[in-house]
């Protein structure tokens, strides 16, 4: 089956992204033979609110090979600004600056310690519960039901996916938080 690169992207966009990657594979209803072991996936730039399209090319190891403007995207028609043109470096991380494991700084400590996810999540859950159990207000001074927690606050994030925002806001309100804000305010 001969599929041009542009047609391939249109098809893959609707059915499956990141064909060589585990997360994409679950969705891969259609697969097309490629001549090189590089998967191409359409994305939207993570910087400003224009919402330009870009194409992420990555190898079998899941590392980015290249990111370029998406010529099919009706807003940017393949062009990108300097930030968009640097998208690849988010994953390539030439300065080795990305966080790769949970880090913990104890009170008074002078450095970070690497920790496991299990330990970190358990500790955070305990901190949340301690503050909530101590400070949760079921009623206010006038005896009205308020079910709120003022001693924990949540900030962020306007660069999250909408689905992430939906779960963060659901979780924070469920804990009783009222101090919930993000970058739109500032």
């Amino acid at each position, binding site marked *: 089956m001969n599929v041009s690169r542009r047609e391939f992207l249109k098809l893959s966009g609707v059915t499956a992204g990141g064909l060589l990657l585990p*997360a994409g594979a679950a969705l891969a209803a259609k697969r097309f033979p490629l001549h090189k072991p590089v998967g191409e996936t359409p994305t939207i730039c993570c910087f400003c609110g*224009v919402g330009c399209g870009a194409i992420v090319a990555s190898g079998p190891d899941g590392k980015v090979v290249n990111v370029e403007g998406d010529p099919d995207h009706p*807003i940017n028609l393949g*062009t990108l600004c300097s930030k968009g043109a640097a998208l690849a470096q988010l994953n390539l991380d030439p300065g080795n600056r990305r966080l790769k494991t949970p880090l*913990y700084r104890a009170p*008074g400590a002078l450095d970070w310690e690497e920790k496991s996810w299990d330990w970190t*999540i358990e500790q*955070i859950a305990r*901190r949340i519960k301690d503050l909530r159990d101590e400070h949760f207000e079921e009623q206010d001074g006038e005896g009205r039901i308020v079910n709120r927690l003022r001693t924990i*606050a949540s900030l962020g994030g306007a660069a999250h996916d909408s689905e992430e925002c939906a779960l963060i806001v659901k979780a924070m309100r469920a804990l009783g938080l009222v101090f919930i804000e993000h970058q739109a305010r500032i």
Partner: protein
Amino acid sequence: MTNHWVDLKNSDIILIIGSNAAENHPISFKWINEARKKGAKLINVDPRFTRSSATADLYARIRSGCDIAFINGMIKWVLDDMEAHPEKYNMTYVTEYTNMSFLIDPSFTLPADNGGKFSGFQVMDEFSIGQFGQYDKSTWKWQTDADGIPKKDKTLKDPNCAFQLLKKQVSRYTVEKVCSVTGTDPDAYRQVCELYASTGAPDRSGTIMYAMGTTQHTHGTQNIRAYAILQLLLGNIGVAGGGINALRGESNVQGSTDHCLLWHILPGYLKPPTASQQSLQAHLDASTPKSNDPKSANWWQNYPKYFVSLLKSWYGENATADNEFGYHFLPKLEVGRNYSHIALFEAMHAGEIEGLFCWGTNPAVGGPNVNFEREAMSKLKWMVAVDLWQTETCSIWQPDVCDDPASQQTEFFLLPAAASYEKEGSVVNSGRWAQWRWKGAQPPGQAHHDLWIVSQIMNAVRNLYKDEGGANPDPILKLRWDYGYDPSAEDVAKEINGYALVDIVDDKGNVIYKKGELLTSFGHLKADGTTASSNWLYTGSYTEAGNQMARRDNADYHPAGIGLYSNWSWCWPLNRRIIYNRASVDLDGNPFAPDKFVIRWAGKWEGDVPDGGWAPMNMEGTRYAFIMKTEGHAHIFGPGLVDGPFPEHYEPLEGPVDNAFSATQVNPTIKVWQPDEISDRNEFPVVCTTYRVTEHWQAGQMTRNLPWLVELMPQVFVEISKELGAELGVETGDPIKLSNVRGSARAVAIVTNRFKPFTIEGQAVHQVGIPWHWGFTGLAQGDSANLLTPHVGDANTMIPEFKAFLVKVEKV
């Protein structure tokens, strides 16, 4: 944006004010230039001669903080011209679609009659810069007839009609007076007025592109109100190439706002309950507007359907009619208390807040008065930061910035997150297009996407409450949280869209949805607990036909070729690409601008998804065009804000001169949090503003860690005029220091023609500007501009006043 990026190509006049789009939204110029190829003109209004100014047909300088004076003067120009030459304007639009004809309460009075305040001001505080308080708004209302419908005078002659009151309000804003306050050249100002007013012709359109230069003021909301009034007068809302277009600075600031990561709203702009609303019914009664006018759609009358569907989505089968659908699982706000960013940091500084989540955010650089906010965070018991990088915010304990790390007692948990294309989900651009992103690479090491992270935390908290009990576990344990170990973005997107909880039948008894099916329209949501949707605005985004946000058909099917791209991704509401579009047609449904129509009536609507499907105004069973407004008319007289139904000029908290329009110096309804921290103009005489550059992004963590971008833009700088440079003996490349009552920042000077001294009321006023991306971590480091900015916000929104404050400039 009421419109969207590609729609800029349909504009006749593009006004960029409070934004530097060429720098910060460069791709927008693809469509601005497309318009200019067809003869459109670009106007730029800015304190600094920016990259946007350099490409503009007409540039007008303005001192930071003076938008209202500038726009009120334009409104005066238009009203004067409209009375002399009504044939040049779209009077049908003005009289039929806006509330210009509404008769206002005769006891309502204007600032000219009250020393700079509207009627009803009540003093609560007094500081050196004036009296502060709030308005009793009982006179800010229209007169109603016996049926409770607003009284109107469509001749616009009645002295109490909104048109005449607006005319009176702006009569003080003459060209001479405006320019003496804003520092604008009067000839340039007249050209701006004349050119922009030309979009008042029914078949022409003008767009206003704005960003944080507009919003980040103590009167930021009124700045936007002024733009909106101007656009409504010119018939520029709802039309192709028109609109009020906020240029969003982050890739999903639109979506994150729609999903309401904000204290004062719940998903879909619903209202969080307050302590005074002790039952679901009390909340719904207080939140659902009523209209007596049968021709008003009053869309928010549907509020109960959206609110109950949200409760059903969040609490599932634990939300029943018997427990008010779980209404009391929701936290209740204290009546009259503000919980916004500035208030939050004031509470943290006072010790009220002990734990903090920072989800991909860096307030130690991006917040106002960062010395104060860093100090507030150092008082926390713990912080959980979820990020790609080690930011300034999670580094405030480190020896290079903390005097005594060993006594700094905050615990920090720093969780590694996945970047945008290392996970799956949707982001919503400024034009409300929800665009799906697929996973295209693996996150490094053990980094995870935030759905996984938040789910792990909630699963662990729920397990603790299950095992141990604790303070009221119900809101946590009755929550529907069944996402498993690794939540799927697709599943969450379906939950946002909403689905039927039982078989849903229409009026004729036909089953339109089987139980469990995804809904196609928020018109099908119910208040009786038979539907669930965690955000009504997004109903239709993920249906039984598939993920609409993932659509990639890039053909423009609109008959006039106006570039709607309606089959590319999906936009809220209901894939309507230009909102308020029923105002783009006359009373018979014929478009005011046939060559670039948005919708038109041909027995049914053609073109974009119409704003409510009702027939044109001259037909039976119709509804007014502005369906979200209770009375169906766009608000030129806008009683909803806290600081006035019309915009009135006030100086910033730190202004370089006395207010020339009245004795009220500063917006009298702001909250002055730190009255002792106001920079005195005698000691700190220079106006300063902050801004951004193309190569960096926001608080810098996403760009100051990328070598390519650091190489392009390595260092923080301050732009100063040649005149100020000569006064200080400063040349380009010299290190200089900006300081005020809150702090100081060092940077390299760029001595440039891009800034010029202003002459304000006969007095020379200098202005300088500094980009705010830098901080003390990352590959490129430098002082944060927000070391200088005040901890004060807009009266309505509490957005900080980053864009106009006072400093002293020194050579170091």
